[in-house]
Every structure is written in structure tokens, then in C-alpha cells.
């Protein structure tokens, strides 16, 4: 083990370092100057993110427990980027007096969960995978319960941690069966010995259930809406984008890498889950008024679409999933950014409260519109490309009916996205949300989102790059 080899882990190491620096900074600043940690941490994280983009070697460490490839590096960068945007958006919320004592904790916990996700993505055995998963979940529960003055926040926290405990129990049971059947927890060994025996399939279904919890697939999704609604809005966006994105990455990696040989068996499973997820989530989203709950169901539906990419089970599928998550980062964070701004300025987080927003805050409304169109998959914004590639991936395997169901679901989803747009543009009210200016950091984050929404689609290079590294992965 040489020092260079540690550079393979630079994402994780940097993040840990960052967490420690924030921890030290917390001790260094005075009681009154705690808010200064916010720009400091955000800046630090920006640096970490930037370093992450430097091209690096890839390889395997710890006898296969830790693996990197261009693809995993890219995934981590995507997550870093998302977290950076979220940090920029959290400023207004963190500055509130009730949070003043816990600013650094927010950053540390977030970064630690991110470390967990990174390890999860890079894991080469199920033990690392499991530990990454838990590292990504347990502190998240604390983040969800961060708003200690709000009972909803506490309720969301307990719901998250208990359901996640159950789901990881089921997941672990599956893993134990896999270990029993194959004699190893290392992916490389398992692949060599895996075969479609009932016990493996059973274990796989348990595994999918556990992962389905993280990606929030129907019927493992029920926690999502409550937790998203109760959590502080920035944590919600973190869960819906980063946590879900990481889970989707990991899921696709493991499904392709470890269970690739079982495609014949799991395609039906994923098919059924995709249909259920899209449909049920859309049905629930139809009548939500709380914007966070609404976006929760929307994000569940998006997870259903991701399954279409996974169903492709080839480099196209992989690329489409990664690309979709990349698009989803910008899109969803754009929407959450607007929701955050509005919430910070007015305390309103219902769709009906957005009436006539366009009159008072045209730029935010437009941004929200673009983000929602992107979520709905309307060209020319990036969401269209993201969905299109997912569908292409599914169609390449001949799942035309599934694609049809998915596109019809996208149409239904358009209905509820348009409801928000209708509220902002069409509905009239005497007391719209007053005009306000967002903070600088919020604006930077929104600009990042909107440029991402427009650029990621049209710049075909991005997709081609993802496709290339996905090809290397296989």
C-alpha cells in the first residue's frame, strides 16, 4: 500500500478532511460568529468539488473492497456538485436563529452521509456497501429531525430511521443468504458463483427491497412523502437528490455488476416495480398541495423512470441512469431552490400559496417553470433528454409497452407539474407572495441549476462522455 494508492480514495478522504476542518472551525469561531461557518464550509466544499473533477487514476484497494472507475468518479462528482448546490441554498435556513448553534453540525453530518454514499458507490463487497448505506442513512435521520422546534421534523426523523432499520434488516437477510449460497461477500467472487437458484432470487428480491427503500420505489416508498414533508427543506432536497441519486448509482452498479447474469430473472421484477412506482406515485402526486410532499411523490415517480434505464442492463442503460441523475440534480435542485427561497421569504410551502408568483417574482417563477418542464421531460430542457435516453435504453430491450406506460405516466405527471405552473401564472390572488430578493449564494445556486438544465441537454458531449465511461465500466 503506497501513498499514491490513497489518492484513489481522494473523494472520500477529502470529504473526511473537510468534515474535520469544519469541526475544528466550529471550535475556532466565537459564539456570535457562527454564521461565518456557512460561507467557509460552502467555500471549502466548492474546493473539494473542484478537486474532484481533476482526472485521476482508477483502481482497486483493500483487496477489492474499494473500487474506483471513471464512472464512479463521475458519480461522486455529480453528488459533490449536488451537495455544493444544496449548501449554497441552505444559507437562508441556517441563518435562522434557532439553527445558529448547530450550523457546523449540519455540514458535518451532510458530509459524513456523503462519505457513506461515496463508499457505497465504490464498494467492492457487501460489507462496505452495507456500512456505506448505513453511514448515509443514520446521520440523515438526524438531519431530518434538525428542525427541533417542529414536531413534523421529529416525526419525519423517527419515521426515517425506523423504516430504514427495517429495510436494512431485510436487505441484510438477503445479503446473508447470498453469502450462504456463494460463500463470499466480495462482488468479484459472487459474480463467479452466482446462478439463478431460488435462494439467490429470494435474496435478490430482499436486496431490491432494501435498495428500493433508498430509491423509494413503490411499495417501499411510503416513508418518502412523510419524511420529505417533515424535513427541513434543504434536507429534503438533499434526500431527494443526493441520497436517491447515490442509491440509484449503487443499485445500478450492483445490479449490473453482481446480478448481471440474472437479467432474465430480475427483468420482470424491475418491470413490475417500474410500472407500480410510476403509476402509484403519479396518482398520489395528483392531489398534493404541500410543495415538498408534491416533490416527494414526483421524485418517486422519477425513480420509476430510472428503473427503465436499469432495465436496459447495458452500457446504454448505465449511461442513461447516470445522465438522468445528473439532469435530475440540476432540475430538482432548481425546483427546490425556488421552493426554499419562497419558504425563507414567506414561510409558504403550499402550491396554492404560489398564486400569482409570476407577478411579483417573475424570475423565480420562470426558473420553477423550466425546472418543472424539465421534470416532466419537455424539450428543449435537459429533462427531456434524460427521459428520452432512459426510454431508449428500455426500448432497446424491446420493452415498448413499458415505454408507453412510462410516457403516459409522464403525461399524467405533466398534469400536476402544470398545476404548479398554473398556480404561478394563471391563478389570480389579491395577496401574492411579496417581491423579494434571494441571497447571493442562493442566486449562484439557481444560476448553476438553470444553466445545468439548459446545457446538459444540448451539449451532447456530456452524454457521450458518460456513455464512454459506462462502456469502460462494463
Amino acid at each position, binding site marked *: 500500500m503506497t501513498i499514491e494508492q490513497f489518492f484513489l480514495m481522494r473523494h472520500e478522504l477529502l470529504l473526511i478532511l473537510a468534515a474535520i476542518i469544519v469541526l475544528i472551525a466550529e471550535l475556532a469561531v466565537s459564539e456570535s460568529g457562527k454564521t461565518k461557518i456557512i460561507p467557509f464550509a460552502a467555500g471549502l466544499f466548492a474546493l473539494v468539488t473542484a478537486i474532484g473533477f481533476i482526472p485521476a487514476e482508477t483502481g482497486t484497494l483493500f483487496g477489492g473492497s474499494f473500487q474506483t472507475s471513471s464512472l464512479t468518479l463521475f458519480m461522486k462528482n455529480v453528488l459533490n456538485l449536488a451537495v455544493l448546490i444544496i449548501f449554497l441554498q441552505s444559507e437562508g435556513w441556517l441563518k435562522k436563529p434557532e439553527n445558529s448553534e448547530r450550523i457546523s453540525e449540519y455540514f458535518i453530518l451532510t458530509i459524513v452521509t456523503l462519505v457513506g454514499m461515496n463508499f457505497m458507490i465504490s464498494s467492492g463487497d457487501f460489507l462496505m456497501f452495507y456500512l456505506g448505506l448505513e453511514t448515509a442513512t443514520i446521520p440523515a435521520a438526524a438531519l431530518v429531525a434538525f428542525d427541533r422546534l417542529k414536531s413534523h421534523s421529529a416525526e419525519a426523523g423517527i419515521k426515517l430511521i425506523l423504516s430504514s432499520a427495517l429495510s436494512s434488516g431485510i436487505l441484510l437477510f438477503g445479503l446473508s443468504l447470498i453469502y450462504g449460497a456463494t460463500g463470499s461477500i466480495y462482488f468479484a467472487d459472487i459474480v463467479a458463483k452466482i446462478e439463478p437458484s431460488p435462494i439467490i432470487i429470494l435474496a435478490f428480491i430482499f436486496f431490491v427491497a432494501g435498495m428500493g427503500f433508498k430509491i423509494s420505489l413503490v411499495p417501499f416508498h411510503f416513508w418518502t412523502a412523510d419524511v420529505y414533508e417533515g424535513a427541513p427543506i434543504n434536507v429534503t432536497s438533499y434526500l431527494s437528490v443526493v441520497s436517491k441519486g447515490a442509491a440509484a448509482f449503487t443499485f445500478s452498479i450492483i445490479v449490473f455488476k453482481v446480478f448481471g447474469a440474472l437479467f432474465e430473472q430480475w427483468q420482470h421484477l424491475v418491470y413490475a416495480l417500474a410500472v407500480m412506482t410510476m403509476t402509484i406515485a403519479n396518482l398520489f402526486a395528483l392531489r398534493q398541495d404541500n410543495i415538498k410532499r408534491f416533490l416527494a411523490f414526483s421524485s418517486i415517480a422519477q425513480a420509476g423512470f430510472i428503473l427503465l434505464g436499469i432495465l436496459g442492463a447495458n452500457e*446504454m442503460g448505465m*449511461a442513461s441512469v447516470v445522465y438522468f441523475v445528473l439532469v435530475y440534480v440540476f432540475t430538482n435542485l432548481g425546483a427546490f431552490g425556488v421552493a426554499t427561497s419562497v419558504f425563507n421569504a414567506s414561510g409558504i410551502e403550499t402550491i396554492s400559496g404560489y398564486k400569482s408568483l409570476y407577478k411579483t417574482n417573475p424570475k423565480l417563477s420562470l426558473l420553477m417553470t423550466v425546472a418543472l*418542464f424539465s421534470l416532466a421531460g*419537455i*424539450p*428543449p430542457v435537459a429533462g*427531456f433528454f434524460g427521459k*428520452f*435516453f432512459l*426510454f*431508449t435504453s428500455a*426500448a*432497446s430491450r*424491446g420493452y*415498448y409497452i413499458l*415505454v*408507453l406506460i412510462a*410516457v*403516459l405516466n*409522464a*403525461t*399524467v405527471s*405533466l*398534469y400536476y407539474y*402544470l398545476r404548479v*405552473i*398554473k398556480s404561478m*401564472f*394563471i391563478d389570480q390572488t389579491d395577496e401574492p407572495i411579496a417581491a423579494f430578493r434571494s441571497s447571493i449564494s442562493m442566486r449562484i445556486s439557481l444560476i448553476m441549476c438553470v444553466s445545468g438544465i439548459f446545457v446538459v441537454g444540448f451539449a*451532447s458531449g456530456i*452524454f*457521450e462522455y458518460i*456513455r464512454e465511461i459506462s462502456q469502460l465500466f462494463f
Partner: protein
Amino acid sequence: MNILSLFVVVPVLTIVGILFTKDFRGARVVSAIGMSIQLVLAAALVLMYLGARKAGVTDEMLWTADYMWFPSLNIHYAIGVDGIAVAMIGLTGIVVFAGIFASWGVEYLSREFFISLILLATGVFGFFISLDLFTMFLFYEVAVIPMYLLIGVWGSGPKESSAMKLTLMLMGGSALLMVGLFGLYFNSAPDGGALTWNIMEIAKVHIPDAAQRFFFPFTFIGFGVLGALFPFHTWSPDGHASAPTAVSMLHAGVLMKLGGYGCFRVAMFLMPQAAHEMAWIFIILTTISVVYGAFGAIWQKDLKFINAYSSVSHCGLVIFALLMMNKTAMDGAILQMISHGLMTALFFALIGMIYGRTHTRDIREMGGLMKVIPFLAVVYMIAGFASLGLPGLSGFVAEMTVFVGSFQHQDLFHRVVTIIAASSIVVTAVYILRVVGIILLGPIKNEHHLELTDAVWFERLSTITLVLAVAAIGIAPLWLSDTIQQSLGPIIAKLTVFNPF
């Protein structure tokens, strides 16, 4: 830059220009300038096309350009036009130009209005120049989606629900379409080789019959929804009734043509075998649509509803004629698209102008308008005559070509349905004259209407442009018809390879 790309670039630049304007005056002037340039471009394109054909250029598509976009999926930005696309671009140019002037008076959020309107136009232009199914689909959706805001924000009546219905139904159609397009793509190389989205490339291969049978209905209905194919037309009356003037114009005038154009350019051209096998189903549907729309229009009381049902009837005729799959009928179909586009745009423009004055569209509340607003009334009558197929106006040329073409079928079924469809011309006359009789002629019903003022300059400009176009096609149809027939050659050739007759 390729001249065709300009058709997308100019509107985009116009939109950017509007962003820099301060108020509604600036916005409309910039839009007018942009769309005038676009109209000139369209006219130039038509002339250049005719010139090129005259000079003996025999390529199927002219001014083709091809830029690789997503290499891994073989998605290109591929453009090129034949006579049909040129004609459709010309139509779009005219209607958009007229639409801008018809909405000259929009002052509420006018910048946003013009941006959305031009975005819609961008989609339409892009659609017609595309040769790549992906780009085509992309532009298609770009054209459809601004409708929601245009109707929802600037519309009237039950605008939210209409806008929602329209958007969802059209997007539902595009859902079907998307499946069809995937089917085409993944079957575009049945003998091995690279898959492609390019229409001209796909046209060279024979897509397996089973795949054709499966995907043809998806593609055809997908486009058909936008083309107001019975029974997927119900978005049209509500949508048109609620939409603001220019939007109705563009939507009925141009956007609905995307449906018809797609039906033959994609569905029938690429899947001729299935088209032949399944034509009869859709022929029956469209025959129903033609007659049914006309009868439906008789009973309506709202001017826009009348016109919307009339559009169902006329657009039904387009698809009806396309399915006849011979040169004359398809020529007629395209003429009908152009003709219907122009005259329905004219109709909607006039309805908007009349509504702007009388504040009602209920025909029972109007009467004798000929006396107070003679210019609008006369133009309305001209539009009505065009609609009922008066010789000398475009409707006649189109309908006659359709009927003569459709009747050339050896099969009795086709001739019988032609006769049934032809009977719609009588019904059309009934509802057109009913409206004209009620609202324009007779004594004035409402005292307040005595104070109405006639059209102002921009309204005149808008309507006269359309009237001239309608009359030009009606009086001298030969060049247009010949151009279209020439361009239909390859399509017919591909279709007739499988013709069982």
C-alpha cells in the same frame, strides 16, 4: 449557415430580442420584425426551391445538412426540405406573420405572450425542416407545450381546463408517437448495420412487417391526435374556444398540420406495408370525422366552436386523403393542409377581432354586423366561401384534388367513402351560411353594436395577407400542386411498392 437553419435561428434571436425590450410596444415591434424576416425567408425559400427544380436539381431533399449530435445513438441534427416541406414552411411563415399582427393589441404580459408565440413557431419551423426523427420529435414537443401558457394565461372562458385538456391529450398523443419512433429506430437496420433516426435512411430499408404492424398504429395515432383524428379530436373545440386569437390561428393553422405532415412523412412513408393493411380502419375513422365534424358544427353557438368543428372536418379530410395513397389524393391532402391552415387562421383572426369588439362569440347575440364593420364582415364571408369550397379560393382546389384523387381508386370501398366525404361540402355550406346569415346579415340585434369600429391597420394587414394567400392558391394552384406532386413522387413510389392493387 444553411438557409434552413435560419428558420430556427431567426425566431430564437427574435425571442432573445424580445427579452431586451421594455414594454409591449417594443415586444411587438421586435416580433413583427423577426417574423417579417421569417416571412421573407420563407418566400425566398419557396422561390429558391422552384428555381432549383427548374434548374433540374432532382435530389429528393434540398439544402440538406447533417450535424452529428449524439453519436452513440446516431442522433443527428439533420435538415432538408422537399416541395411539401417548403410549402408548409411558406404556410407557417404567412400564418405566423398574420398572427403577430392579429395579436398587436395584446398588452397583458405581452413580452411573455410574444415569446411563447414565437417559441411555438420555432417548434413548427424546426419540425418541418427536420429529417431526423429525434429532432423532429423535439421540435414537435417544443411546438406543443407553449400552448398551455398561451391558452392558460391569455385565453378566455374555461381556459385552465381547456388548456389542460389540450396539453394532456396532445402529450398523450406524443406518448404513442414516442413508442412509434423508438420502434422505427430499433428496426431501422433489420439487416444489421447502424441504427438511425434519419427518415431518408430508414426509408431505404424495409422495416420488418411485424414491426410495421405493431408500430404503425402508434405512430399514426400519435400524429393523428394533433391532426384531430376522430375520436381524439375533443381537445380541439375546447382549446380553440379558449385560446387567444393568434394562438388559435397558429394552432389550427399550423400546429394541426404537424399531425397530418407527420402521418405521411413518418408513419406512412416509413411503414408502407402496415399503412396499406390498416388504412381502412383509419379511412373509416376519418370519413366519420369529415362528416361528423361538419354536422357537429351546425349545432354550435360559439363562433370558435363552429370553426373548431369545421377544422375537425377539414383536417379529417387531410388524413382521409393521405390514406388514399395515390399521388392526386395526397397532393390534395397537402393542398388541403395549406388551404385549411390559411383559411382557418383567417377565421380565427376574424373571430378574435369580432370578439374584441362585441365581447361575445355567441352567434345568437350578434346580427347585421355587415353594416357596422363591413371590412371584417366581407373578409369573414371570403373566409367562409373559402371554407365551403368556392372556386377561386384555396379550399376548392384542395377539396377537388382530394375528391378526384380519392375517387381514382379501383376499390369500390374507397369510392363510396369518397362520396360520403364529399357530401360534407353541402353540410359545410349549411353551417357557414348559417353563421354568415346570423351574425353578418340581417338586422342589427344589439344596439351597442352600432358603435363598433371597423378594422384598424394591423388587423387589415393581418387579414389581407391571409386573404391574398388564400386567393393566390385558389386562382393559380398549378405551380403549388405540381411542386407537391413532384415531391410526392418518391413517397408514392415507396408506398406503391406494396400496393396490393
